[in-house]
């Protein structure tokens, strides 16, 4: 906060900015609730809060911060001018999400006295991750300001890949903690896994590049279709699988499983992940 700001901005403007910020906080809180409620009301998420390996939980939380900063760049609570504003937004959103999780879990009776600090902190931290995503997206989802005011740059190729990763993480986070991911993997034969992988790939391609959704990319005429498929869909699906594997590992779902089961579970979780990645440009 350089002193120059106080010279350039009249006090009235500062108050207006504060009012806008407080409205943004309210929206962020709503976003955290909307996006995290399914997970706040999932037993596995409560249990993972205490039996998850603490180092993996710390890694997950640490990785959330650059993810939020990136999301703030491309969407976020408000149009931001500088990177440090994005960092500020990311930290604010983390606080809001932690608060939303703590309040909701306490009301549900999931957090009570007699629980260890490790259990309480673990439960809140785990819920903070999806909540902060939701809070960050709240502006683009629930924001009232017209699009033209947002001077967000069209994402570059790397930005596009980042958005895919964020979309995949967001959707797979909903499913990865549940027992069903591993159960579905057990039920599927190797052939069914192959089919699911192909279907995911096809859907992903169709979602954004063939169909013309609002916000979806239109392929420039001079770029051949196979180039888009290889550069975006295939690379995107590889990112989706990496995100799926990471989510499964973070939640301890790969521990002690054989290679075949791990691959199969990764493909299963990659299915929602692929949908999330493909729709990231539409959502975020």
């Amino acid at each position: 906060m350089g002193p120059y700001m106080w010279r350039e901005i009249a006090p009235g403007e500062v108050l207006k900015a504060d009012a806008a910020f407080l409205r943004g906080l309210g929206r962020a809180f709503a976003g955290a609730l909307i996006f995290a409620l399914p997970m706040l009301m999932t037993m596995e998420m409560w249990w993972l809060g205490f039996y998850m390996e603490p180092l993996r939980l710390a890694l997950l939380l640490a990785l959330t911060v650059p993810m939020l900063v990136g999301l703030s760049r491309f969407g976020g609570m408000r149009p931001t001018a500088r990177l440090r504003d994005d960092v500020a937004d990311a930290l604010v959103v983390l606080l809001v999400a932690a608060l939303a999780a703590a309040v909701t879990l306490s009301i549900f009776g999931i957090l009570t006295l007699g629980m260890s600090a490790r259990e309480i902190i673990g439960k809140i931290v785990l819920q903070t991750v999806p909540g902060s995503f939701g809070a960050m997206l709240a502006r683009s989802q629930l924001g009232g300001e017209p699009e033209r005011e947002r001077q967000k740059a069209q994402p570059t190729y790397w930005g596009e890949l980042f958005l895919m990763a964020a979309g995949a993480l967001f959707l797979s986070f909903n499913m990865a903690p549940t027992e069903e991911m591993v159960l579905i993997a057990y039920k599927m034969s190797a052939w069914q896994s192959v089919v699911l992988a192909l279907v995911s790939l096809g859907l992903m391609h169709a979602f954004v590049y063939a169909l013309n959704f609002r916000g979806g990319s239109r392929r420039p005429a001079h770029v051949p279709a196979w180039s888009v498929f290889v550069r975006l869909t295939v690379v995107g699906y590889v990112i989706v699988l990496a995100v799926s594997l990471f989510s499964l590992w973070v939640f301890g779902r790969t521990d002690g499983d054989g290679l075949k089961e791990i691959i199969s579970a990764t493909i299963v979780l990659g299915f929602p992940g692929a949908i999330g990645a493909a729709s990231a440009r539409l959502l975020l």
Partner: protein
Amino acid sequence: MTCSDAGGQEDARRSQPALDSTSPLEWIIAAAGGLLLVAALAYMVVFAVTTPERPPAVTLSVTSVTTTPGGYLVSFRAANAGGETAAGLQVSGELRQGETLIETSDMSIDYLPQRSERRGGLFFSANPADHQLSLRAHGYSEP
């Protein structure tokens, strides 16, 4: 937070300053968020490094015996002093008169996290006050 004047003016030109740059209030809240983030990370890392992988150590203690229409209810508290979570913890209670077993009752606790406690109860048809009551944890699985 230092910023050169040239940079500040450039930023101000590039965007609507009042809405786009971070207000002092937001910085305060961001600082609180950052503090919370660092604290949570530090706690998890310190916990991981300093807590040895000790198996669950379960102690059961009776908190009350009450009469209910379904029989006598023995309420108890299960505390886990170990370093790992016990899943599906099997708990049973026995009423004995000397060497003779009068009655047994079983229940299970879904999860008993490390360094935490859970409460539960066992029903008996005989009055526990007339006999020797003992509670025992039988087994668990790793989550």
